[in-house]
């Protein structure tokens, strides 16, 4: 039985059919970030007072570089998903909302690529 009004159907109101994917992605990244963020806190404590050479030496090991890249990728994806929800909830002016959504997505993407590029360059000794 069709419970939706004809007008609502014609206007394409209702589910955007992609909310479940967003929900799962937010949870998956959240679960992954539990061990990753705890690892990062311990790493950051061990790096207190580390100078340029010491920090690069730490980031040059395969395990640390890999963990940092996984952390950065997961973190920025999670941040993007979270910012999207916050913007959608609080920015009601349509043009401002679209600009904020696209802008935050672009900025977070550039930041993520910058982090990963930096990690790779340091790990390769550049």
């Amino acid at each position, binding site marked *: 039985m069709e419970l939706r009004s004809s007008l609502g159907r014609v206007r394409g109101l209702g589910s955007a059919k992609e909310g479940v994917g967003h929900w799962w992605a937010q*949870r998956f990244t*959240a*679960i992954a*970030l*539990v061990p990753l*963020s*705890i690892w990062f*806190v311990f790493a*950051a*404590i*061990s790096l*207190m*007072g*580390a*100078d*340029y050479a010491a*920090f*690069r030496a730490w*980031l040059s090991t395969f395990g640390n570089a890999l963990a*940092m890249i996984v952390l*950065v990728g997961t*973190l*920025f994806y999670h*941040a993007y998903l*979270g*910012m999207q929800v*916050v913007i959608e909830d609080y920015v009601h002016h*349509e043009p401002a909302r679209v600009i904020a959504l696209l802008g935050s997505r672009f900025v*977070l993407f550039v*930041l993520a690529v*910058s*982090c990963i*590029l*930096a*990690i790779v*360059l*340091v790990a390769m000794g*550049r």
Partner: protein
Amino acid sequence: MPSVDRPLSPHLQVYRPQITSVLSILHRITGVALTFATLLLTWWLVAAAYGPEQFASAQAFLGSWFGQLVLWGFTFAVFYHLANGVRHLLWDFGWGFEITQVRTTGIAVVAFAAVATVITLIAAYAAGGA
């Protein structure tokens, strides 16, 4: 766009702040704050790839009183968002919806974040200062 003035909810002005609502919005506030914290993380990593001078200036900012204050705030935000995020995941599994459980876990999350922040700061300063 709405042609009808439908009632909106909730009216924050007439609601007394409660542990449920305060911790809920704090989760979002810390989440947004941590998104801005990624700027510092990016600066730190990119500076390490750029060269000793850039890394030294990043370290100098993070070591200044203002940088330290910001890092303390972000440390609390990490622990709060982490613990409350786990609380959210438990809710996703359908656990902890009773009002007494919501209160207890809420207090536990704040207590964990505060204690973990203090322990982290002590460990950080013991490990090598600023």
